[in-house]
């Protein structure tokens, strides 16, 4: 049999099946990028050489089934169906075998050559399940290889079997449904018109037509193939009348029972319920009292670590950039060239100084918590609070990410199933004090007014987010479907996987935000060079002087606040012509608070606006900007009145 030059191998499995770990141990450091389970819905091709053979490997995000309404999972399907892979590696969590097999059965129906990695057999054994991979292989008609991806066990055999299938080909036999359902499937299959865009094979297409009719596919089907739609509708009605349940439910239940039967026949329960370590830890982590104590401790530790690591690192990193700038200043004088160079240096320096010190530890800890399985548990614990602001537990992890940087936080809202939840979460994230804004709060409020003020500022900020969320959810009425969140079993996090995830997030952040940061810096340098700051100050004077009661010179810093929030402190000092220690001689405490409040809220930074535009659309990006300006004005006036 002729085989393609470079075969495509797709990894697919349910979330938390250890798919990415397995993918890593095969594609390893050779692979450039991969998906971030739970936080992104990206997929990537990597061309790797495995045992001297070139293979295109694709790691798809986890999906529970091939028939889904979840937007993130639909991407998986589009990809799987269009790719026509030469081999599918189905990763199944052995400790939750019967559920994993439901996807396996669908994949067998899909009919691409496949093998099964029966992963995490150690976890299954710990839970008292003894597996018989040989039996499973005979029953399914698909090679089954037991693996422990985390330790690299079974990977070699998996590869051998994979190449075997690639070389020799494979014929799969889908499991038959019960007679009444089977008859309808065969009938729809038979009546598929010539030239109908069949996915993989006619039988799979027929099953999916019956399962999904009534959705997007069914809608256009009526226009394109009215006869076929009639056939499908008739088949669905026949099944529904027979079983008294919707056709999709009947077919799903068929697979469910087949999977249960298969898992019963290929595994043995050695002992009954036993308290394993993870169950004991879970009992504490999700305890109605201790759970929240631990959650609070985790958050506190989070911020302490980030700022303990971030602060010294930041000054360490900014030092050389400032020196370089000064050196250039003496060399180049005050010409256009110097200003351009200064903008460039400040742009790169700012990028390095935010990304590395604060963002890196945050992402690292987030990945560790995610791998351990804690983020899902935090979502569970905080769900009730999120309900007050019209959201649910799944929005917790984007929010936490927002404390580092709003940009990736908004990207990560993709894990939310409903668009309404995504929009609401994305509108709230810009109000979360990201590390750049936290720096300003620390530098201005904590330094001049004391740490208690800074903590109060933080607490007030979170309260404000809650109020805005509550108000917004009155406007975006559409009910949220509510929380359905799998709580994966706890796993000891592995450093390699955490490092890899952190790196991938940093990489995509740098790629997106740095050009904007550097561009913004250059624009600002040009503004100074052409002495546009005075003109901007005059333009903004009504707002700055009359509205906020701040010195006339601070107008230009607001522009900075849009382009580069973390620069607004330096700009403030520059604009007022004082150094850090003597700021209080020119402005009052009250003015510092007003300035900090306004600059924190008044507009999402350029990168955040851009990502909002890209992720949830222009309309909502403008809503977000308008909202921020409104909130900033109201809050600053309120602060002026109170103080």
């Amino acid at each position: 049999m002729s085989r393609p030059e470079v075969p495509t191998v797709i990894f697919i499995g349910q979330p938390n099946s250890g798919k990415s770990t397995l993918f890593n141990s095969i594609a390893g450091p050779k692979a450039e990028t991969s998906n971030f389970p739970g936080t992104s819905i990206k997929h990537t091709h990597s061309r790797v050489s495995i045992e001297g053979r070139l293979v295109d490997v694709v790691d798809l995000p986890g999906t529970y089934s091939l028939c889904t309404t979840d937007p993130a999972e639909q991407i998986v399907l589009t990809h799987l169906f269009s790719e026509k892979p030469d081999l599918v590696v189905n990763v199944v969590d052995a400790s939750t075998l019967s559920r994993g097999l439901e996807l396996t059965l669908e994949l067998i129906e899909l009919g691409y050559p496949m093998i099964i990695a029966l992963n995490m057999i150690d976890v299954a054994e710990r839970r008292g399940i003894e597996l018989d991979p040989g039996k499973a292989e005979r029953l399914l008609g698909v090679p089954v290889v037991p693996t422990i991806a985390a330790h690299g066990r079974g990977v070699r055999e998996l590869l051998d079997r994979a190449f075997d299938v690639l070389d020799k080909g494979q014929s799969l036999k889908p499991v038959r449904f019960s007679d009444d359902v089977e008859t309808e499937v065969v009938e729809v299959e038979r009546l598929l018109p010539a030239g109908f865009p069949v996915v993989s094979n006619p039988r799979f297409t027929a099953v999916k037509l019956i399962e999904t009719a009534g959705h997007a596919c069914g809608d256009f089907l009526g226009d394109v193939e009215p006869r076929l739609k009639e056939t499908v509708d008739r088949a669905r009605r026949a099944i529904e009348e027979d079983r008294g349940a919707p056709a999709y439910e009947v077919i799903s239940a068929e697979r469910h029972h087949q999977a249960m039967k298969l898992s019963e026949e290929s595994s043995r329960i050695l002992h009954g319920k036993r308290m394993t370590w993870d169950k004991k830890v879970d009992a504490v982590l999700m305890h109605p009292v201790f759970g929240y104590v631990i959650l609070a401790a985790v958050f506190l530790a989070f911020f302490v670590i980030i700022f303990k690591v971030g602060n010294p690192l930041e000054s360490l990193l900014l030092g050389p950039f400032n020196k370089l700038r000064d050196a250039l200043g003496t060399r180049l004088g005050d010409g256009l060239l110097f200003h351009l160079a200064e903008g460039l240096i400040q742009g790169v320096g700012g990028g390095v100084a935010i990304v590395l010190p604060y963002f890196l530890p945050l992402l690292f800890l987030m990945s560790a918590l995610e791998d351990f399985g804690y983020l899902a548990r935090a979502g569970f614990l905080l769900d009730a609070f999120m309900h007050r602001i019209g959201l649910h537990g799944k929005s917790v992890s984007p929010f936490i990410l927002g404390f580092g940087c709003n940009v990736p936080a908004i990207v990560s809202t993709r894990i939310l199933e409903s668009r309404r939840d995504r929009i609401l979460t994305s509108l709230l994230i810009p109000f979360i004090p990201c590390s750049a804004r936290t720096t300003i709060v620390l530098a201005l409020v904590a330094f001049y007014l004391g740490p208690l003020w800074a903590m109060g500022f933080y607490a007030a900020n979170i309260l404000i987010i809650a109020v805005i969320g509550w108000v917004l959810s009155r406007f975006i009425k559409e009910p949220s479907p509510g929380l359905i969140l799998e709580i994966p079993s706890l796993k000891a996090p592995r450093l390699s996987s955490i490092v890899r995830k952190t790196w991938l997030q940093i990489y995509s952040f740098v790629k997106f935000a740095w050009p904007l940061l550097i561009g913004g810096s250059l624009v600002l340098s040009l503004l100074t060079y052409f002495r546009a700051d005075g003109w901007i100050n005059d333009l903004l004077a009504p707002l700055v002087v009359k509205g906020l009661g701040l010195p006339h010179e601070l107008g230009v810093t607001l522009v900075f606040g849009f382009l580069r929030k973390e620069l607004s402190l330096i700009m403030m000092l520059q604009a007022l012509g004082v150094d850090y220690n003597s700021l209080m001689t020119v402005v009052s405490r009250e003015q510092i608070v007003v300035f900090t409040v306004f600059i924190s809220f008044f507009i999402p930074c350029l990168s955040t606006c851009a990502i909002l535009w890209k992720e949830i659309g222009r309309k909502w990006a403008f809503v977000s900007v308008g909202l921020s300006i409104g909130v900033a004005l109201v809050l600053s006036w309120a602060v002026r009145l109170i103080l």
Partner: protein
Amino acid sequence: MNLTNAPHGRPLRIVDLAGGESVRRRLMALGFHKGDIVELDGQAILRGPLLVRSCRSDTTVALGRGVAQKVRVEAVHEPS
């Protein structure tokens, strides 16, 4: 009864999944079907979500109250 007023730590059989199609599909994809045996494993404070464990596959999901209300269950009498 439904999951919000069912006893904790006892085996329960799912009698019916009510609610919209997308919620039902999601529940089924996560391995919760009519006839399955589940157990309530805990809950968060302030009427927070419930932890529901499927006895067959030993998977646990957190279900918000609104979703949990739509899962009708009956008690299973364990053979003593």
